[in-house]
């Protein structure tokens, strides 16, 4: 029943054992799913709770779980065990380097694709038809790529688990919203301001807590994130409470062209184009793409600086770091502040894009999603984080499109409900299956004679 593969001989497939496993797991699954899925509580007309019997569905699910377990025990585990014995020795340095080359090729191709993406979409779907693809997929995914890369500095490089990253995102968003509305400043002035304010908050929050150990730090950052959200809800004079702030000004094209329909220098009018919000979306797409690439560029450059090396050293072993004379507090604080700054940039972009901010956008789940992206991407790998963001955000956006599922599961089936469930499952499965994430290679930034890539599995992380 244990999901850990036992090291005993697996020459023959033990069908009896697998069958027993499957049956037991199926029974357990039914004991749990029976009440939770099989007996749905519903309110009737008199507002009383009644039970709706769906035990059949629960039974089907339990049988699926049991059969899955049987297949795992009978085929997958023996196969993994057999493969594990062979492949352990087979991973050579050359192979790892080849993998790194593939990664590099992939990132260049990806970059080119990202730049031509809106053009491609407009030529495929027309100006009006492009809005969905550029906005829902392009901009949405890129925001998370940027947030993932920002948080990657904190989690992936410095090894500090920050569960309250969304607080800095909120600081950025509210900074832009409030300053733009009350002082009529432009996005381009407020973008750096929002970043600085977020970094400032990062330092304020980071200063007292960074002496804490990893899991404590995680919980304290979570608490801070919640405190900021609760203050935003309750301090109504300042933030508008849970109603939020609406009609936040749009981004202008450096003050030359505006995307407001009523403005005299409207972009579409100036170029004698048909009025459409698609131009604004394309502009936002390139804006967030550049912001994300800025994040990536700065991260890559920082990694080559002493501070970046200190981050990675800190991640691997804090005690050794301290004994080698690195000021761990300052090192952590810079990671925290720089990560927060990018969160602030992304936040002000978010506010400008939505035109509306409310505390609802900055719940803990949002932090958890960003953490999930960083973790699934392999904590430290830029391309891994980007791929994870595409897979998770794009994948869940795609779920909305899957109308044919309604034919299979009935009219009431709403794939969107399963979004976070799948997110959580992916987090657990990836952790169990590949604790180092999708792309787990470690590339040392400082090296002797030649660059060697080390598999993440070979690195043991210390306390941090």
């Amino acid at each position: 029943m244990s999901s850990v593969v036992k090291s005993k001989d697996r020459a023959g497939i033990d069908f009896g054992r697998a069958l027993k496993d499957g049956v037991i797991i199926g029974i357990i699954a039914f004991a749990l799913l029976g009440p939770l899925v099989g007996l749905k509580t519903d309110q009737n007309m008199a507002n009383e709770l009644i039970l709706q019997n769906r035990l059949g569905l629960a039974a089907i699910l339990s049988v699926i779980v049991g059969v899955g377990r049987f297949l795992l025990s009978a085929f997958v585990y023996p196969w993994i065990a057999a493969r594990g014995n062979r492949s352990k020795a087979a991973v050579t340095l050359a192979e790892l380097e080849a993998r790194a080359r593939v990664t590099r090729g992939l990132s260049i191709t990806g970059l080119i694709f990202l730049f031509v993406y809106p053009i491609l979409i407009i030529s495929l779907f027309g100006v009006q038809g492009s809005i969905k693809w550029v906005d829902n997929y392009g901009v949405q995914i890129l925001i998370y790529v940027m947030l993932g890369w920002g948080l990657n500095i904190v989690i992936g490089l410095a090894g500090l688990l920050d569960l309250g990253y969304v607080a800095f995102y909120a600081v950025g968003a509210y900074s832009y919203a409030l300053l733009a509305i009350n002082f009529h400043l432009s996005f381009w002035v407020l973008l750096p301001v929002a970043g600085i304010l977020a970094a400032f908050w990062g330092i304020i929050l980071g200063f007292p807590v960074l002496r804490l150990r990893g899991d404590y730090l995680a919980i304290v950052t979570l608490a801070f994130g919640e405190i900021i959200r609760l203050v935003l809800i309750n301090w109504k004079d300042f933030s508008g409470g849970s109603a939020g702030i609406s009609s936040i000004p749009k981004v202008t094209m450096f003050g030359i062209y505006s995307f407001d329909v009523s403005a005299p220098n409207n972009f579409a009018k100036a170029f004698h184009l048909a009025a459409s919000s698609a131009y604004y979306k394309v502009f936002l797409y390139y804006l967030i793409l550049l912001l994300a690439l800025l994040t990536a560029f700065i991260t890559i450059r920082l990694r080559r600086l002493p501070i970046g090396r200190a981050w990675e050293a800190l991640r691997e072993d804090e005690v050794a770091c301290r004994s080698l004379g690195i000021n761990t507090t300052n090192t952590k604080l810079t990671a925290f502040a720089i990560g927060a700054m990018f969160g602030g940039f992304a936040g002000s972009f978010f506010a400008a894009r939505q035109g509306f901010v409310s505390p609802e956008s900055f719940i803990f789940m949002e932090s958890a999603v960003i953490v999930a992206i960083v973790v699934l991407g392999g904590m430290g790998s830029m391309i891994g984080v980007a791929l994870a963001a595409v897979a998770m955000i794009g994948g869940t956006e795609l779920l909305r499109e899957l109308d044919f599922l309604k034919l299979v599961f009935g009219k009431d089936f709403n794939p969107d409900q399963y979004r976070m469930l799948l997110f959580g499952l992916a987090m657990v499965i990836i952790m169990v299956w590949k604790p180092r994430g999708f792309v787990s290679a470690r590339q040392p930034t400082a090296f002797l004679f030649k660059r060697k890539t080390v598999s993440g599995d070979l690195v043991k992380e210390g306390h941090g």
Partner: protein
Amino acid sequence: MEVFVQQVINGITIGSLYGLIAIGYTMVFGIIGMVNFAHGDVFMVSAFFALIFLLVLTSWFGIASMTLALILVMVVAMVLTGLLVWAIERIAYAPLRGSFRLAPLISAIGMSIVLSNFIQVAQGPRNKPIPPVTRDVYTLWEGASGYPVNISLKQIIIWVVTALLLAAFWYVVQKTALGRAQRACEQDRKMASLLGINVDRTISLTFVIGAALAAVAGTMFLMYYGVVVFSDGFTPGVKAFTAAVLGGIGSLPGAVLGGLLIGLIETLWGQYVSADYQNVAAFSILVIVLIFMPQGLLGRPEVEKV
């Protein structure tokens, strides 16, 4: 004065629930040094188990006696929640022993998301209200201003059940072989396994015991507030974790003490300072305690070893 006493009574009631949940956090942390982030959601799921079985008993079997129903529901919720957590531990935590340090925490966060969203999908996103189990209220005394100090039967039930359960739990930890094994594992896991203790099993049972206590808290939460919703795990979970940290994580009496203190602080803060910022108060306590007193009230200071 009457208001104060009334709020203390309410605070102790909520605090008992926090204490019961906090024990699960503190035991797991003590034995494998992991923050079981999903514990709050386990608590929420247990409340749903209780809700569903309460409905089964009352509407299908027509049990009229609420006392009997409550006891049955509590037992069923304990068993099923224990089973659930045992399965979670096997699937999501056990394979990660000896992996890098943040892996179990991240896996637990994933599990927490899975549990709350699973309930949302399976049971629907709405509040689930039940008719009040009992309406009995006793007036202790009436103040000069005519403000009565009340204690409800529900509150008495919560106090009594918590006290009984803590006594039983204390007996298990102090006097039984399982408790000895747990304490041995807490001190030195490797040595304990050399001495023939089944460490894996002990850890699983620790999770299960914590879950059973959370299930009792979940049942009583349902009974006390009369409503439960899929997102109810997060805030009580964080507050109970705060309680565990305040009392000194790893210390069992500390968890109960911390729970009572958090309950009292929260209700008194809500009464005298600001009801809006009630949760902010609880979260702030967590931050302040962790920064200035990471070992908590009854905990041992942690020594970092290389």
